[in-house]
């Protein structure tokens, strides 16, 4: 059963999620991490997916929506692909965890990697391939793929961080 926002601990928990998400966004945008072949990790994407894995499909979807909108607005001034993708993938990731899979590091890695690959791939399809930009294959290999790999590297540590927050506040609410 998903914990509601009405409880105080629940509110603090989601404040933690939002605060850390914002912190990861700053780390991501300020360039603390070195660029590998011009690619940087997308923390918000992973953070929202992991929150969906741990907190359920609906809260995860809303959180993913918020992360996507925030990311899009800050970077592009539009609300578009990322909010849509985050809503869909966070929801279905949460559904899978609640129904056929268990919430552990292995499933987090599996679902997080799959979702990252699909989101990044469809981004490439929509904004590079269908947009008719030159050298689409080069963009896929030199930008999209390194970005996917770089992002996937952080699934495990971020998963443990989400689990720690959830466990701590769930224990407090009990």
């Amino acid at each position, binding site marked *: 059963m998903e914990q509601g926002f009405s409880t105080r601990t629940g509110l603090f928990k989601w404040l933690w999620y939002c605060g850390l998400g*914002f912190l990861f966004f700053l780390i991501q*945008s300020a*360039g*603390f991490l070195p660029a590998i072949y011009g690619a940087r990790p997308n923390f918000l994407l992973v953070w929202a997916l992991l929150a969906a894995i741990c907190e359920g499909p609906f809260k995860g979807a*809303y959180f993913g929506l918020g992360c996507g909108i*925030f990311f899009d607005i800050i970077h592009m001034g539009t609300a578009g692909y990322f909010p*849509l993708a985050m*809503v869909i993938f966070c929801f279905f990731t949460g559904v899978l965890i609640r129904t056929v899979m268990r919430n552990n590091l292995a499933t987090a890695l599996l679902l997080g990697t799959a979702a990252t690959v699909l989101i990044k791939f469809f981004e490439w399809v929509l904004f590079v391939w269908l947009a008719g930009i030159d050298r689409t294959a080069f963009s896929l290999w030199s930008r999209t793929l390194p970005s996917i790999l770089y992002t996937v590297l952080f699934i495990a540590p971020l998963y443990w961080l989400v689990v720690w927050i959830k466990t701590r506040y769930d224990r407090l609410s009990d």
Partner: protein
Amino acid sequence: MKEFFKGRAFKILVAIVVVIAGLLIGSAASGRNLPLPSDWLGNLTSPFQNFASALKGGFSGLGVYFSDKTATAAENEALKAQVAQLQQQLADYDELKRENDQLRQIVGITEQRPELKMTGATVISGDGGEYYGTFTINKGSKDGIKEKDAVVTTAGVVGYVSEVSYNHSKVTTLLSPDCNIGGYDIVSGDFGVLTGDSALAAQGLFKLAYLPKGSLIAVGNIVVTSGLGGIFPQGFVAGVVQRVVADDQGLAMDAVLTPSADFSKLKDVLVVVGFNPEAGPTNSSVTASQNPVSGQTSPGQTSSGTASR
């Protein structure tokens, strides 16, 4: 699983997805970005982004500092090694230059005095403030140097080798009372003994002692070595007469001389390792050039001679 798709929450979510998709399609179709309140969100987040960027700059600077420091340290070591190498090259150059100058001096004197066999040496330590002016040179028995070998420069007599070791030797100069070299005034022809004493040595002077009482030696005359005794080669300029005084007993005269060689600035000297005592300068260029007044040559001079000692 079906329960997830039946509730009101799912329907709300679907509505949100539809709206977003519509906006996305609309912006794609119109070719323009949709006007969204990015300004206020940007204003809200920019201070944090500025802080994060500044923090990142600080960390980068720290990294650059350490990497630069490491690189600078490595460059420093490399430059130190290069400086040491260049200093060694400079020292080698100085050594070669000095040796060249010595050889030039030897060649110059040898041309005038072919009967002399000489080797160059460098002063490696001074007398530490002694008035008598002894010093050490960097040549010894391995270089053919023996005791009582004459030590000269192109300017004139310096002294003689008083102690010999394997690779260095001690030289006693004309200022020392231990020095007793035969000399004479090329003008008057009066013979005496070149020696020093403590009082004169303090002034950087020495004397030609045991001159006859009626000596005609005069101020300004040049005194050279006589070669009497066969130990010290003849014809080397010792000094210039500064004054003539009576000796302590009043039985003879002493001529106080200014040495022709500047002992305070000695760096390179020539050691006469062999000469023919019976031979003198092949020409009078050494003495005559030092005495523009008389132009006389030294006694005992022969037309030619070879080094036989």
